[in-house]
């Protein structure tokens, strides 16, 4: 099944899916719909996206108040791929966690929470994975400014006679 057929099939049962004009293989859905969509993508015998390729967090820029999560899905059986983009607004960045469906999402979602602060509800233990547990702020956001010190250690590099 090539991508247009997949998109037609998804759109038939999910009305609120929109498409991106210059990126054919990307569908954009919303946080409310993502729970049924992910189950549908996983369990539908014709689509059967059983392997998740990658989950990426996006910050759309300082001016737009939108974060985003990109899911790249792939089916081992039919060898076809799809990319789902879900905008998440910065005020309350929560989204359904697909950790129960694809076990790989466990660590990827923890990393996105660590870097962007998007809370995945339903995740078994959502805590920081790469940064120390008590680090404040979410580094990969565009409006992130570096903390001066962390536990008394000066963060930015001081080199006398260099600047």
């Amino acid at each position, binding site marked *: 099944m090539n991508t247009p057929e997949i998109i037609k099939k998804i759109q038939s049962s999910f009305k609120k899916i929109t498409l991106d004009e210059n*990126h054919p293989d990307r569908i954009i859905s919303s946080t409310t719909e993502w729970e049924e969509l992910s189950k549908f993508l996983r369990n539908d015998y014709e689509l059967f996206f059983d*392997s998740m*390729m*990658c989950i990426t967090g*996006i910050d759309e820029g300082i001016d737009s108040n939108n974060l985003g999560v990109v899911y790249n899905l792939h089916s*081992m059986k039919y060898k076809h791929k799809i990319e789902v983009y879900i905008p998440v607004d910065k005020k309350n960045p929560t989204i359904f966690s697909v950790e129960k469906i*694809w076990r*790989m999402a466990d*660590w990827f979602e923890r990393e996105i929470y660590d870097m962007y602060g998007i809370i995945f509800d339903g995740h078994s233990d959502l805590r920081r994975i790469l940064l120390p547990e008590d680090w404040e702020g979410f580094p990969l956001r565009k409006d992130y400014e570096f903390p001066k010190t962390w536990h008394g250690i000066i963060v930015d590099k001081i080199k006398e006679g260099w600047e």
Partner: protein
Amino acid sequence: MGININSQNLNNNSDEEMVLNIGPQHPSTHGVLRLKTITDGEIIKKITPYIGYLHRCFEKHCENLTYEQAIPFVDRCDYIGSMNNEFGYAIAVEKLMDIQVPEKVEYIRVIVAEMNRIASHLLAVGVFGLDVGAVTPFVYCFRDRERILDLFEMLCGARLLYNYIWIGGVSHDFPVGWVEKTYEFLDYFEPKIIETNDLLTYNKIFIERTADVGVIPPEVAISYGVTGPNLRGSGINWDLRKNEPYSIYDKFDFDIPIGMGAMGTVGDCWDRYYVRIRELEESLKIVRQALDQMPRDGDVYESMPKKIRPKSGHIYSRTESPRGDLGFYIESDGSAIPSRLKLRSPAFTALSCIDEISKGWMLADMLTILGSLDIVLGEIDR
């Protein structure tokens, strides 16, 4: 320093359980990794890996570097297979800017990437022998690996972190005599694999230690996103070079070794190890064919863009690195600096499934499983 009483220990205070920190500094964690294991005697009940000790803010850096300046940083993610990293990154950016690289550069890249795969698998095999206790195969594998590193040093000056494959081409052509030296290496290396087989692969103690240990069932592997030799060890015939051929891999004939459960069940440590050994032979075949078919003349700078400013948009492309499929998600907003660069690292997913696989095994087996997954902490922590 009594047993560190933390909340977990108190509530299920059955006295056999002991919290053991296979701490950030341990001889066989393949890098800086802390495994907090709850063990009952030697049997392991639960493992919670703590990573992030080698986190160098790769993705934050790449948001302030131009596309060609990011190459030395991409090298340093998986510092054992850095040529394959560059290859994956270059393909992703070239797809974004839809540049078509000349024939000769494709051949150079395949040769160099496959040589790097041999070097990386040699390290994986040698260190796995070390985890199981055999010291000599480790030294033999590193002796052969040195010869590859010498070839790379002659090619681009560096032994491990090359900055050789650029966007749109390679930094310069093969030096004189490099091709003959590579042929010489291929002939030298052929019998060496048989020697490692005699010494380690069919050794009864080695088989006793690795067969039926840490079995990853296929559906668990797929759902955890495990890829590469670990996935092929579980019997799934999935190799990006064959199933989603990128660059010119469709010009070479090589087969994909998958785990057959020759010495135990399908998907045990021995299978993953044996898949890597067979992949050494496959890569040798590819390099030999590529060296024969490579056009000797042709310029490598032809399609190298002066200014790298991809049109705004995004791309997700993945290539087969020695540890699995290495994905690059690049989002560009038209300027010379990427607005988002995500590296999907195969070792990251391989490590995430260690808790499920090594339940109920003993401490020594758990380290064997960790060794057979062949993780690199630089790539996990980015």
